[in-house]
């Protein structure tokens, strides 16, 4: 129950309307620090919309999304910050420093570099004309930009920049090894097979050194072996890095096997929230997935052998 004890992200009353359509309605949930949290639900439940709100690509109609690095989200602290009108509060106002961030107020790239939330996309968005290595280097833009003295020092080949680039290379190498793509580092990202592209996108997001990694259907289109590799990769991230994971997934084998916490959406509403076991046995969830009334659930359960 880390999401209660030590929440990294607290979403409160999130609502997103597109014209007349309410994609997400008054949604509240927390993401625990160090957890793998899965956001599941039938097609059109509003999962990707939640992702786009958290990562700043959509401005939510209303609601609060507070992320705290360094310590659990404390609601009194968040309320105090919200009343000041600031978007975030962090140590020395440094990019990448610990602090409290009100994500609904921040533009997408600020969420990525200040609040350190990284994401992948449902339809892979790699820089396909750049090499695998370049993809991983671009992800380290923020520290490299600072080291290059906002380009000016870099233009004259300052040693500080060369050191930073070497450090970036080291990190890139590390992730290349983890996704087993070292041998293809200098090939165009667009030339990789689909499964490799998925892993590369995750590695690229990890290169930004995130506290929260949001994965939008990472197992979509993977074969069973690749799916297994993905599980290993995600566990490595959780166990060896200070990165929590929030993922959208349809593949229940992935969800049930690796997640610590599952939130279920249907028609933009939260219908269940808890450990994988508790969610698995929640009649509402079964009904939502199988499209049957609650009273028929027992019967269906018997049929599917639960």
């Amino acid at each position, binding site marked *: 129950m880390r999401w209660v004890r030590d929440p990294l992200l607290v979403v409160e009353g999130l609502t997103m309307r597109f014209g007349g359509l309410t994609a997400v309605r008054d949604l509240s949930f927390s993401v625990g620090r160090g957890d793998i949290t899965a956001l599941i639900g039938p097609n059109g439940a509003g999962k*990707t919309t939640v992702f*786009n709100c958290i990562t700043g*690509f*959509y401005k939510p109609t209303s609601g609060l999304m507070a992320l705290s690095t360094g310590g659990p989200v404390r609601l009194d602290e968040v309320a105090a910050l919200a009343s000041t009108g600031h978007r975030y509060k962090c140590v020395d106002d440094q990019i990448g420093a610990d602090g409290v961030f009100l994500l609904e107020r921040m533009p997408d790239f600020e969420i990525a570099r200040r609040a350190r939330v990284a994401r992948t*996309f449902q339809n892979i968005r790699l820089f396909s004309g750049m090499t695998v290595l370049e993809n991983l280097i671009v992800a380290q833009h923020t520290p490299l930009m600072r080291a290059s003295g906002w380009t000016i020092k870099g233009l004259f080949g300052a040693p500080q920049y060369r050191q930073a680039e070497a450090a970036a290379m080291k990190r890139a190498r590390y992730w290349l090894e983890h996704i087993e793509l070292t041998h293809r580092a200098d090939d165009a990202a667009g030339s990789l097979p689909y499964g490799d592209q998925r892993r590369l996108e995750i590695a690229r997001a990890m290169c930004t050194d995130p506290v929260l990694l949001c994965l939008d259907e990472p197992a979509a289109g993977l074969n069973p072996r690749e799916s297994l590799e993905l599980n290993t990769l995600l566990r490595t991230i959780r166990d060896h890095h200070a990165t929590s994971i929030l993922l959208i997934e349809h593949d229940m084998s992935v969800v049930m096997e690796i997640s610590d916490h599952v939130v279920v959406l249907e028609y933009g509403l939260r219908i269940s929230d808890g450990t994988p076991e508790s969610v698995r046995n929640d009649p509402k969830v079964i009904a939502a997935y199988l499209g049957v009334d609650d009273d028929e659930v027992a019967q269906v359960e018997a049929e599917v052998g639960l």
Partner: protein
Amino acid sequence: MEYFVQQLINGLTLGSIYGLIAIGYTMVFGIIGMVNFAHGDVFMISAFIALILLILLTQFLGVTSIGLALLIVLVAGMFLTALWSWVIERIAYRPLAGSFRLAPLISAIGMAIFLLNFVQVTQGPRNKASPSILNNVMTIPMGNGSVTISERQALIFIVTAILLLAFWAIVQKTKLGRAQRACEQDRRMAALLGINVDRTISLTFVIGGALASVAGLMFMSYYGVVSFSDGFTPGVKAFTAAVLGGIGSLPGAVIGGLLIGLIETMWSAYFSIDYKDVAAFSILAIVLIFMPSGLLGRPDVEKV
């Protein structure tokens, strides 16, 4: 007051011409998603075609009735300009379908340069004064003075209205119109459903060319002078009209055309004639920046 009404009439006349050209832009953009840069020059060529045909008919073939001459010029001009538009699509755009996205734009710019210089080479660089026709004016008393409508202006209104209605009927009611709208939505799917996409695109260019030729005839008779360089500025203004109305929308193109015509005329009448083109270009920029879907277009949502 009568000054204003007079400017209103002049503005709507000019706007009709822009609207006719704008339809060509809007249809082509709708169907293949490119700005047909050469369209303004197709319009310019059509003005020359109209001019030459008119002289040919009245001076050499002995057609004395100006009405008959204009009718022949209109029909023949539509046919010949449509041919130009068709050939341009076949040569400069079709081979590039599905290639690098910038290629058709560059090809279109090249085509525009070619057409401009082709007319300059074949017809000479000087302005050509057309025979003056339909000079009678109708004077309507109003307030202390009066407002005049020339036969030319009346003709422009009437022809534009008839053509637009006919054209509207084609797009709304016929199989071609349906095919066109299907191609706009999803070209690949339309092809899978058995629509001849190439033919539909060709016909779009043909219709665009035919309408531009009407605009060319109007332009020639309204201003009484044409030059090889007359394609660019009206072309950009007509494109502005298409964008203002909402690109892809036919009524939008006409409304946009009328608005641009009015704005240009009013700007010249009340502010400064020197900066009328600056006004038109500024509107283009402002509309694209602040309301890129125009008056009647569909909004475009960024997909993540």
